[in-house]
């Protein structure tokens, strides 16, 4: 606690949890990237690709992403309502339950306790833990909003509220399963229904973790870091409602050309295209906020993170709907193109915004100056170059794989075996590993910079 009465210890706890899981998740990512061109690293069943991949996706998506979201949410909630956290001890318990759940998730997934539903792989006892963890968070969210001192709820709070309710609905509906024992359960949905529920969940869990709360950060920290107000309040209102309405219709674009009824696929395509509008509403709002102040891209290291971050969000939300179109999907789906697409969002947009938010927030909650702006700039360039090299490599690899799958000889027979296509990608897989190393070094610089910041003596003038 400081003189304002705000509780920042839980913010700090989640921020360091985020850094911890980020580093662990990336080490696992590098391990997997190596296994893709050299299976020798499948040393034990626990380290085999099939089991480890889900530790990577859960560790980063949930371990890093969600703890970054909780850290910034607990900060934004208090600042935007001008109210101290109503239940600080509950928040502290939330921090411990969260980290225990992630650790248990990693161990059980490596042990093969895996429901196979993407981003919902945890077995049912951990699902129960996740729901309890979410309720602990939601209690503080709604209590602080009810007790708030600031009449109007700022845009960022809308996004946080919609995340809080939507994740609850998604998680519970997709994880309904009948337990066999403590370690194993079966989905209550069968076949096409299970697929439809899963990708409604899969698409929206990404939307309401990697988009909605990250936009909350963007709308809060961009004006704070630049000293410029958001360009258009009306645009942010329209974008918000259009985004959360349209998102839920689009899951089936992950199931294009599968046996799922065609009308569900077609509805998903239509709403995916529509979704470009609200996504770009936020991109445009971000760009116009900088109107007349574009020199900040040179003078303010934080502005770079936010503007390049929202640019990757813009590219991501164009690429996504386009690769959902039936003809393009027929070509790209199941290839590494999609892996490139996902990583532009996570390594570009999500990590850039969380990084910059931490750079703004951590010095303020600890009464310290940022350790080094120079290191923050190095971090920016390393993760930018690492991410671009990573994603572009995967896009090219994806196009090549897709083309080789489709290539036919003049007599109509297939030109390449499956293995021909796969082995032709090994040079790309090696480049991807190298790009991942560059990115990882950038993240180590980030972690070091934050750790050194809090290890310094407090700043002389403390302005929280």
């Amino acid at each position, binding site marked *: 606690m400081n003189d304002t009465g705000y509780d920042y210890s839980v913010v700090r706890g989640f921020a360091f949890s985020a850094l911890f899981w980020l580093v662990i998740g990336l080490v696992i990512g590098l391990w997997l990237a190596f*296994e*893709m061109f050299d*299976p020798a690293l499948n040393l034990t069943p626990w380290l*085999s*690709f*099939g089991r480890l991949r*889900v530790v990577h996706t859960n560790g980063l998506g949930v371990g890093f992403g969600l703890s970054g979201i909780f850290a910034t949410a607990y900060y934004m909630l208090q600042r935007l309502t001008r109210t101290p956290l109503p239940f600080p001890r509950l928040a502290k318990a939330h921090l411990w339950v969260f980290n225990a759940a992630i650790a248990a998730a990693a161990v059980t997934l490596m042990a*093969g306790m*895996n*429901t*196979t539903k*993407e981003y919902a792989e945890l077995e049912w006892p951990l699902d129960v833990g996740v729901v309890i963890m979410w309720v602990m968070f939601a209690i503080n969210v709604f209590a602080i*909003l*009810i007790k*708030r001192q600031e*009449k109007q*709820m700022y845009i960022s709070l*809308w996004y946080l*509220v919609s995340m*809080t*309710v*939507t994740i609850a*609905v998604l998680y519970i*509906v997709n994880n309904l399963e009948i337990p*066999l024992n403590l370690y*194993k359960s*079966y*989905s*209550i*949905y*069968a*076949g*096409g*229904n*299970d*697929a*439809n*529920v899963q990708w*409604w969940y899969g698409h929206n869990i990404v939307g309401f973790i990697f988009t909605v709360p990250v936009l909350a950060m963007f709308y809060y920290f961009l004006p704070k870091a630049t000293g410029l107000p958001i360009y258009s309040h009306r645009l942010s209102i329209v974008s918000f409602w259009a985004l959360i*309405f349209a*998102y*839920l*219709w*689009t*899951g089936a674009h992950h199931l294009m*050309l*599968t*046996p*799922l*009824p065609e009308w569900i696929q077609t*509805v*998903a395509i239509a709403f995916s295209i529509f979704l470009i509008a609200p996504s770009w509403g936020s991109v445009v709002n971000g760009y116009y906020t900088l109107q007349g102040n574009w020199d900040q891209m040179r003078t303010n290291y934080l502005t770079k993170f936010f503007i390049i971050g929202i640019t990757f969000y813009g590219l991501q939300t164009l690429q996504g709907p386009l690769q959902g179109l039936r003809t393009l999907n*027929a070509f790209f789906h*199941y*290839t590494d193109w*999609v*892996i490139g697409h996902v990583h532009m969002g996570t390594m570009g947009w999500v990590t850039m915004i969380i990084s910059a938010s931490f750079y703004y927030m951590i010095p303020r909650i600890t009464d310290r100056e940022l350790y080094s702006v120079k290191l923050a700039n190095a971090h920016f360039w390393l993760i930018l170059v690492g991410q671009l090299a990573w994603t572009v490599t995967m896009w090219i690899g994806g196009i090549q794989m897709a083309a080789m799958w489709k290539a036919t000889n003049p007599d109509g027979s297939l030109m390449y075996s499956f*293995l021909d296509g*796969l082995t032709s990608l*090994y040079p790309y897989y090696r480049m991807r590993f190298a790009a991942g190393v560059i990115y990882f070094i950038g993240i180590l610089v980030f972690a070091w910079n934050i750790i050194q910041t809090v290890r310094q003596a407090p700043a002389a003038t403390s302005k929280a």
Partner: protein
Amino acid sequence: MGIYSKPVVFAVIATLVILVGTVVTVFVPMFMPSTQPVSAYVKPYTSIEQEGRDLYMREGCNNCHTQTVRPLRTEVLRYGEYSKAEEFAWDRPFLWGSKRTGPDLNRIGGKYPDSWHYRHMHSPQSMFGKSNMPPYGWLAENKLDTSESFRKTQILGYGYSEAEVQQQIADYKARVTAPDYDSKATRDEVTPAALRGELTEMDAIIAYMQKLGRDVKAMESQQ
């Protein structure tokens, strides 16, 4: 603006907004038979096949292999007839996958003899030098746990009696341990001596591989 200063009202409205698409595209289809049609030709998995399916899930095979052949010319050429909705009526969960680092498996059943699978599971690289598939030889070193096989079929609604499940297990064990089993030599090569007379996890996962897409062939030949 009213609702931006009323958090509970705001939360309720936001929930209703996200539920519209959810109800139309997810909840309503649950009650439409066309989302998951059934066919008398597509039979539930036997207990051994189900054990194999559970191992497929445990090892996360779905991270690299899909189980849906799309209705595209080159795809049908490569894998076989495209996937039909009826095939998945017994699949809880579905295992369609989202990435093909390895080939689709929806039509793998009957494509190769068991011996091919024993050798390939044991060491993919011994058959395809440049393959990046992890070797799963250790599956043959684990005795298959069938203690919950019956309960699994109960939960999944397969409708077998306990005696039927025991019979399925005994029959499959008799098949793969028989002296005249057509893949005996390869199975013996990859299975430790002590387990050659038992059912192993590898036996079960191969039984599952051989089931994939086989019923639908019967369905198509009848149509």
